[in-house]
């Protein structure tokens, strides 16, 4: 299988205001295979977001290697779709207008991608909301628009930085199901960052536990739960056990 993401001995340092070098990430080695749903879980401030920024080409690592689709990442690459915690929709654009933003920036054929945008909106459950403005949508719906926008230019990799972190529990579980549906339909490779253990186990083929600052890959746990996953999974003994394993690796069980 092809590694869509390949990180080798990656490290990132920051210069503090006093000029002291602060390590944010250290010894990150990670391979994410094509079509895989990989989840990174770790405490606040472990450098999860920094890692995603490096993979997206928005930030440069200090040392080590970062490759996406076999190519060294040194600047932003359009083969990636990103979803942040905040939907970051443009208030002056309708739903369809927001989804079409990458098409305009990448100067792709608008009329061709418009039908793709409508298909994606249907896929995330927003058919009929094409002409609404973001402020007319709920938080969960806005995040669905953000997911459709991240996929419109058909990137092979979807990077998600705590995308459901600002949503309430119920919406959050709904969105997890929406995302799994999208992933099963599109076959994208997903790297999903979260601080929710339950979310990590429910979604991932694999859960990568990052240690606190400086972030290091502490453990790599394959989650062997049946697919397609439904709400039923959360009731399984095995699911609870996986959650306990992750808790243990995060040092939450003495």
């Amino acid at each position, binding site marked *: 299988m092809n590694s869509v993401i390949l990180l080798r001995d990656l490290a990132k340092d920051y210069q503090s205001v006093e000029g002291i070098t602060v390590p944010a990430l250290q010894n990150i080695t990670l391979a994410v295979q094509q079509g895989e749903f990989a989840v990174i879980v770790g405490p606040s401030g472990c450098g999860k977001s920094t890692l995603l*920024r490096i993979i*997206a*080409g*928005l930030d440069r690592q200090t040392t080590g290697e970062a490759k996406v689709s076999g190519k060294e990442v040194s*600047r*932003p*690459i*359009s083969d*990636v779709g*990103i979803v*942040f915690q*905040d939907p*970051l929709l*443009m*208030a*002056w*654009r*309708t739903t369809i207008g927001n989804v079409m*933003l*990458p098409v*305009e*920036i*990448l100067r792709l054929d608008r009329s061709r991608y418009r039908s793709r945008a409508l298909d994606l909106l249907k896929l995330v459950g927003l058919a009929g909301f094409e002409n609404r*403005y973001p*402020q007319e949508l709920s938080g969960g719906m806005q995040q669905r628009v953000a997911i459709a926008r991240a996929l419109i*230019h058909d990137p092979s990799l979807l990077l998600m930085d705590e995308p459901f972190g600002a949503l309430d529990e119920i919406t959050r579980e709904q969105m997890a199901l929406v995302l799994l549906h999208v992933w099963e339909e599109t076959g994208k490779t997903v790297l999903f960052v979260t601080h929710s253990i339950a979310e990590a186990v429910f979604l991932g083929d694999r859960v990568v536990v990052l240690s606190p600052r400086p972030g290091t890959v502490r453990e790599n746990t394959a989650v062997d739960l049946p697919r397609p996953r439904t709400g039923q999974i959360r009731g399984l003994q095995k699911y609870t056990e996986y959650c306990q394993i992750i808790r243990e690796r995060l040092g939450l069980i003495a």
Partner: protein
Amino acid sequence: MLGSRNLAGYTPAVLVFIVLVAAWEILAPVLGIPDIILPVPTHIGAALLDPGVNWPRHIGITAFEIAAGFASAVVFGIALAVGIVISPWLRRLLMPYVLLAQIIPKIAFAPIFFLVLGYNLLPTIVITFLVAFFPMIVDTAAGLSSLDPRMEDLLRSLQASRWDILRKARFPKSMPFIFSGLKVSSTLAVIGASVAEFISAKAGLGFLIINAQVTFNASLAFAAAIYLILLGIVFYAAIDVAQRLAMPWDKGTRIS
């Protein structure tokens, strides 16, 4: 702007206005206030329609001065704000002059503008421009800088150029700021044009007010001031309508 449905809510304000004007009309003679100090509303009304005054010409001249000064303030203000926001070098070069131009009491220098630029409409337009440009620069620059840095990341991740980011994100994001700048700037333009006319003009509403003062024609001064108010309202309302058309997504952040 008010929708026609909401107009009924303003009935009390209109009634208060009518009562105040009526009280003024009745009380002024009773209290023995002479017409050359405070003319009664009916006399002002007569002056407003006085065929002996060439109102269309005076209103037209002042409206032209306001429009020209305001328009140049808008174009110059937005252009400078873009320059300041995209280039730190330009910011350091220009900001001291922008601040200086704002802090200088421009009205105190107004007579010099007439000396230098001649006794025509130009000095009034320049003074109007100088009085009105500052909010345009400051508000536009604030708007252009208001983009969420994460939105910029999102655009950069799509390999957006700086021009893309300006056009697709910074500029639309700054629309509410630009419109609030336009509203402040337009009211300042009315003040700038009328005060400049006080100093040395041959026509216009400000010129009429000064003239009326010299000839103790208080009704004329009031009438000219009322036309100035109406001009201000027309400019403000035009901007408000433009805002409605330009920002159909915006509901509730505007103060009518």
